[in-house]
């Protein structure tokens, strides 16, 4: 199975592990992730205003490239996924955006109308490969580990567009954790915000948020929490000392369970 892959800037830089483990695990699962030959930053955040067009152009270029390649577009970073998936939805449903974006892109000879299927790596695991299949391929089950999923905001919301899982009662990461042989721990704060980009200006807010999330995870019995977002990873990890909870990328645990993590 072949897919176009959009890594995004953070995965080329501070979050190289998220990317590397993701690629190794995909290879072990027989998935070919072909990085788009050219891609630009997704913009980091989806614009919540109706009249912002320019920010959406880079996502549309990536979407059009995947379409021309005849493949679905796979993302791994939660932020890239949120932006690209929402822009794709705009390009399917919002005439205002469709017209203006295509006017901009006409010079490049691009016309796009939301044809591409956008998949998060987790959706790839669940819907294209299947957790049962992954369970079969687990070489080193994460036996006895108590792992909490941390969804944050961007994978789930707005649920009508993201359509990955139930926004208040998600199970996709818990099901993955179970497939890897570990014990999933459900805790309420798993879909509450980590503080996001506010960390740049004022660290006190992510600090409070991280404390609430980590304490809740710990109290419900989690030893590790996993995330798909480099910014969540940063905000949580920075304040995890002394909480007894480890913060990891989900791809790291996946690679380890599949037996393809380097040095193991």
């Amino acid at each position: 199975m072949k897919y176009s892959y959009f890594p995004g800037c953070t995965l080329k830089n501070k979050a190289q592990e998220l990317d590397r483990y993701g690629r190794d695990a995909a290879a072990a699962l027989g998935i070919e992730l072909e990085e788009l030959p050219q891609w630009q930053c997704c913009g980091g955040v989806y614009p919540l205003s109706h009249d912002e067009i320019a920010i959406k152009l880079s996502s549309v270029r990536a979407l059009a490239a995947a379409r021309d390649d005849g493949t679905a577009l796979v993302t791994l970073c939660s932020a890239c996924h949120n932006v690209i998936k929402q822009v794709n939805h705009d390009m399917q449903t919002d005439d205002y955006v469709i017209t203006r974006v295509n006017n901009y892109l006409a010079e490049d000879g691009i016309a796009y109308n939301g044809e591409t299927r956008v998949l998060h790596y987790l959706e790839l695991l669940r819907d294209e490969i299947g957790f049962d299949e992954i369970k079969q391929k687990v070489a080193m089950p994460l036996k006895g580990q108590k792992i909490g999923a941390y969804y944050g905001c961007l994978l789930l919301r707005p649920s009508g567009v993201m359509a990955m899982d139930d926004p208040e009662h998600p199970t996709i990461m818990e099901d993955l954790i179970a497939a890897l042989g570990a014990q999933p721990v459900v805790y309420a704060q798993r879909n509450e915000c980590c503080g996001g980009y506010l960390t740049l200006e004022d660290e006190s807010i992510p600090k409070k948020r991280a404390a609430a999330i980590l304490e809740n995870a710990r109290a419900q019995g989690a030893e590790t929490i996993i995330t798909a977002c480099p910014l969540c990873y940063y905000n949580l990890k920075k304040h995890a000392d002394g909480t007894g909870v480890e913060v990891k990328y989900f791809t790291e645990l996946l690679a380890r369970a599949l037996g393809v993590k380097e040095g193991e």
Partner: protein
Amino acid sequence: MASTYTVTKEQILSISGVDPQKCMRCGKCSATCPSYDEMEYHPHQFVAMVEKGEIEKLMGSPSIYKCMSCMACIQRCPRQVEPAKLVEAIRLGVIRQQERNHLKPDDIPALLDPELPQQAIVSAMRKYTK
């Protein structure tokens, strides 16, 4: 800081695509907001104040830089009001004016932490500058 020119209620409604009249004053947005304590005006007040036309007050408030865009209020509003879109529209009303960027590229080096992901910088620039 007073704004240099007027942004009208109609402009805010147009930029945001929000209809504040759909609000039934339940307070779910402010109940769910993780940034509540950092804000002078809270999500439900953005809705009520925009409806009343008090755009100036909101534009002058630091609250517009405290929204994390986590979309919890958008997701959980029982009337699909989408308060975060009003916060964004008001902020754009400010930073789209000349010399009103909240964050300047020169400010950034001082804020950097070696581990900080690029995503945070890009997002903050998107949210705070034009």
